[in-house]
C-alpha cells in the first residue's frame, strides 16, 4: 500500500474524483476532477499546484561533494555556482542511463540531488574515496511544483525572491513563516517554480499558496494534466520513455544519453566520471537510436474516422504505451512510448525512440493507430522538441515588471 504525502490532509479533501495512483510508493492524485482539462488549462493559462513530494531527494555535503557529483553524473558539477540548478543524467559504467534529475547547489559544499528512482544505494556504492555525507531527505522534505504563466505572481504574494529569480536558479526564503527553498524549475515546460519545505510545514505552506493563488486562478493539479504538459515540453520520463539500466532484463532495453536526446547534458572531456569511456566511444560511433518528437497527421486521422462514419477522436489524457513506428515502406523503425493530444497546439503528439537515421527533423514516418478496432498507419512527422516552448519559461524578468505571464501562446 502506498503512503500519504505530507500534503495528504489537503489533497484528500480536494480530490473529488477519487482517482489516485501509486507514485514511488506515495498516493498521488491523477486528477482532482473527473477530467483533467480544467487542470491542464490552469497550468497553461493561470497556475497549477502539483504535489511532487515523491521525487527522491538527497543532500550531498562535504569537501568533495562537487567532485563526487561530477564523478557520478555526466555534468561537470564543479562548475555549478551557488544558487544555481542544473538538469543532468547519470549512467552506469557502460554508459547506460540510470536516471535523470536535477542538482542544485545549496551553498559552498552542499548540493541537493533529485531523482526519479531511489538512488541511495547507488550514491553509497560510489562514495569510496570522497569526503562527503549523503543524507536521504526524501521523506523529510515535502515538495510542490507551482507552474504556469501566473506562477510568479502567486509566489510573489508570499516571498520577494520570486520576482527576479532567473531560470534554473534557486534561493532560500520564508513562506508562511516556514523556511523554504524555491527554485525556478519544473516539469511542464512553462514558467514555474518548485518549492521545498520541511515535512512539518507542508500543510501550512500548501494552504498559503492555495489561498494566495485563488485570485490568480490557481488550481491543484494532478499527474494527468502534468503528463500532457510534459509531453508538450518534450521531456522524457524515466520508466516510460527509457528504462533505468538497473531494471533492464535485457541489454537492448538500456539506453545511452545520446539515444535519449540528453547529449546536451554530457560534458565528456574532463576528469574521469562514471561511464566516460563508454560515452566517448558512443559519441565517436554515433548512437544507434534517437529520441524524437512526432506530430501525427491530423487530416489523415480525420479521414480514417470519417471513413467509418465517426467524428475524429483524441485521447482525453496522455498515454503511455509502446506503439510501433514504421517507415513509409512498411519496415518498423522504432516505437513511441508516450503521447498526448495537445489542447494548446491542437496537435496529436508522440515521443518515440527511432533507429538513428530516421530521427531527422521533417522525416515522414508512420505511426500505428487503431480506429474502430482496425489498425491503420498514419503519417507522423519528426518535429523539433519542445513542441510547446513559451518564451516566459526561461525569460529573465525585468526589474520593474514582475510578470510576463499574461502572454499566452496560441
Amino acid at each position, binding site marked *: 500500500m502506498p503512503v500519504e504525502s505530507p500534503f495528504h490532509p489537503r489533497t484528500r479533501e480536494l480530490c473529488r474524483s477519487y482517482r489516485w495512483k501509486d507514485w514511488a510508493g506515495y498516493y498521488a492524485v491523477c486528477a482532482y476532477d473527473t477530467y483533467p482539462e480544467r487542470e491542464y488549462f490552469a497550468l497553461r493559462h493561470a497556475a497549477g499546484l502539483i504535489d511532487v513530494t515523491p521525487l527522491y531527494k538527497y543532500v550531498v555535503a562535504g569537501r568533495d561533494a562537487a567532485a563526487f557529483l561530477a564523478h557520478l553524473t555526466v555534468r561537470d558539477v564543479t562548475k555549478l555556482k551557488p544558487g544555481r540548478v542544473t538538469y543532468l543524467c547519470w549512467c552506469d*559504467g557502460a554508459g547506460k542511463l540510470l536516471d535523470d534529475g536535477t542538482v542544485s547547489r545549496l551553498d559552498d559544499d552542499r548540493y541537493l540531488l533529485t531523482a526519479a528512482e531511489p538512488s541511495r544505494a547507488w550514491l553509497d556504492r560510489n562514495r569510496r574515496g570522497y569526503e562527503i555525507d549523503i543524507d536521504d531527505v526524501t521523506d523529510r522534505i515535502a515538495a510542490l511544483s507551482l507552474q504556469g504563466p501566473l506562477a510568479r505572481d502567486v509566489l510573489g504574494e508570499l516571498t520577494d525572491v520570486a520576482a527576479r529569480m532567473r531560470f534554473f536558479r534557486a534561493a532560500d526564503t520564508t513562506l508562511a513563516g516556514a523556511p523554504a527553498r524555491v527554485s525556478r524549475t519544473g516539469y511542464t515546460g512553462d514558467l514555474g517554480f518548485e518549492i521545498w519545505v520541511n515535512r512539518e510545514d507542508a500543510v501550512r505552506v500548501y494552504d498559503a499558496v492555495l489561498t494566495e493563488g485563488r485570485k490568480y486562478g490557481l488550481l491543484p493539479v494532478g499527474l494527468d494534466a502534468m503528463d500532457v504538459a510534459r509531453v508538450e515540453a518534450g521531456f522524457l520520463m524515466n520508466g516510460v520513455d527509457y528504462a533505468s539500466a538497473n531494471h533492464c532484463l535485457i541489454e537492448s532495453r538500456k539506453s545511452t544519453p545520446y539515444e535519449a536526446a540528453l547529449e546536451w547534458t554530457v560534458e565528456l572531456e574532463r576528469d*574521469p566520471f562514471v561511464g566516460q569511456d563508454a560515452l566517448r566511444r558512443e559519441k565517436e560511433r554515433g548512437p544507434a537510436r534517437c529520441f524524437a518528437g512526432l506530430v501525427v497527421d491530423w487530416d489523415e486521422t480525420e479521414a480514417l474516422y470519417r471513413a467509418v462514419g465517426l467524428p475524429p477522436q483524441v485521447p482525453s489524457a496522455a498515454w503511455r504505451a509502446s506503439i510501433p513506428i514504421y517507415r513509409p515502406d512498411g519496415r518498423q523503425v522504432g516505437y513511441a512510448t508516450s503521447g498526448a493530444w495537445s489542447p494548446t497546439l491542437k496537435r496529436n503528439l508522440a515521443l518515440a525512440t527511432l533507429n538513428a537515421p530516421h530521427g531527422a527533423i521533417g522525416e515522414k514516418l508512420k505511426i500505428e493507430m487503431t480506429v474502430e478496432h482496425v489498425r491503420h498507419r498514419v503519417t507522423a512527422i519528426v518535429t523539433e522538441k519542445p513542441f510547446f516552448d513559451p518564451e516566459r519559461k526561461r525569460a529573465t524578468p525585468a526589474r520593474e515588471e514582475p510578470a510576463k505571464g499574461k502572454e499566452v501562446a496560441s
Partner: protein
Amino acid sequence: MSGDRAIVLGGGVNGLVAAIRLARGGRKVVLFEARDVLGGLAAGEEFAPGFRHTGILHDASCFAPELAEELGLASHGLALGPRDDILSPEAAGRGLVLSADAERTAEELAAHSPEDVARYREYRAFLDRIAPIARRLLSSPLPDPARTDLGSLARLAKDGLAVRRLGRDTMFELLRLGPMCVADWLKEWFRSERLGCLLAGPALDFGFAGPWSPATNALLVRHEILSGLAPRGGPAALVRALEASARAAGVEIRTGASVAGILTAAGAVRGVRLASGEEEPASVVLSTLDPKTTLLTLLPTGTLDPALVHRLEAYRSNGMTAKVHLAVAGSVEFASRPGERIRRARTGGSFDAVERQFDSAKYRQISPRPILDVSVPSVGSPELAPEGDSVVSVLVHWVPRDRADGWSDGARDQLGNLVLAALAEHLPELPAAVQEIEVLTPADLETRFGLAGGHLLQGEHGLDQLAARPTPELARHVCPIRGLFLGGDGAWPGGGLTGWPGALAASAVS
C-alpha cells in the same frame, strides 16, 4: 616498446620473478620495495638478537621448477630438495610422519594405520595421473570463456581433450571432487583422520574454511599438484637466488622505497609517486601488491568503473593467520618422537578438532586451543640461531583479522600465551627454554607487509576468487588502466609462493 621503463611494485617472490622476466625481455626495470629487505612474506629476518627465521611463510615447495630453470636460479645458489617431512604429533603416542619419500611414509602408515598404506599409494597415483594437465592449467593464463577466436578455442579443445583422454571415470572424478569438502573426500580414501589432517592442512592454511567446508577439496588438489621440490634453506633461500638473478638481469632494486600512488593520464599509467614525493615515470607498472591496495588505494579516486570498485571492495581478504617466532635455548624435541630432529609439524589429529578452529574464527574469536603449523628451521640450518640454540616458527591459522574485540597489545600477549600453552602439549620442555617471543597478529602482518585485510594469500582462495582472481575483468593480469598489470598472489593462479602470478603478469606486459 622494448627499452621502455617498467616499474615493478613489491619485492616479494612475484615481484622478483616479474622483474627478471621483464628485464630479460629487454626492458629497463626498476623494482620498488617498501621494506628495507626483499622477499615480502618469504623474507628471512632476524627477530631476536642472533635468531633468524626463514620467512613468514614456511613452505616454498610450490615454487615452479619451470621458473627456477628459466630464471637460472640454480646458478644463483638455489638448491632444491625433497620437501620436509612433517609430523602430526600426538600427546600420547608416536603420531604420524608424512614424508615426500614414499618408503618412509609407507613405514609410518604401516605402524599407524596399515590399511591406508595401499590407499595412500593409490591416492598418489591418482594425483600423478592428473598432475600434468592440472599443472598446465595452473601455469597458463586463465582461459577466457568469452573468447571465441581460433587460438583460444584450439587451446580449450586441446585441454578438454587432454582431460577426456584420462578416461571417463577420471574425468567424472575430477568434476566430482572439486566442490567437495576435504574431509569427505579424504575419508573416502583413508581410515586415518590424522593422515587426512596432514594432507588437508595446506589446503586450508590462511583461509576462511574448515575441513567440512565445501570446495576445499579443489584447494587440496591444487596444492598437491603444485607442491614439489622445496628450496633448501626455506623461502629465504629462494629470495636470495631470485635477488641475485634479478641483479644479474639488470633490474634496479630500490628497497625502503614506499609507493604512495600510481600516476595516470588519459586512461594509462605514466609512473608512480613515492612516499617521499618523487615521481618516477614509466609506461608500465606491474604491481605485485594486493589488488585492493593497488587499485583502491594507489590509483586516484574516480579512476575505475564503480562496478569494478564495488567488486574489489567485496573481494574477500580478511586475514586468518598469525605468526609467532620463538628464540629457544638449546634444541627442541617433540614428546612423540624423542631423539628425532623434526623440522616441520602440524598439530590436530581429527577433522572435528580442526573444524572447531574454523568455528571460532566464524564468530571472530580465536580458538582457546589453537592448532599449530610449526617449523623448526634451525634443524639443518644451525646458522639461524646461536650455537646449539633453536628457532621455532609457528603459523597459527584461524586467527581472524576482524577479531570481535579488535587487536590490542593485550590480545597479542594472550595469543602468544595460547600458542606457548599449545606448544607445551607436544614440546613440554619448550616454554622454559624460550628466550624471546615475537607475536605478529593479522593486524601486525597487515601493517608490516602492506596487505589490505592482512590475508597472507592476498585474498581468499574461494573458487569464485580463484577462477576470476581478483575479479573477472582483472583475471588476466591486465587492468582497465593501460600499462597497469597485476602480478601478486591476488592474481591468477593464486597464492602460495608459486611465482606464477608474477611470471604470467610479466608475460601479459609484452
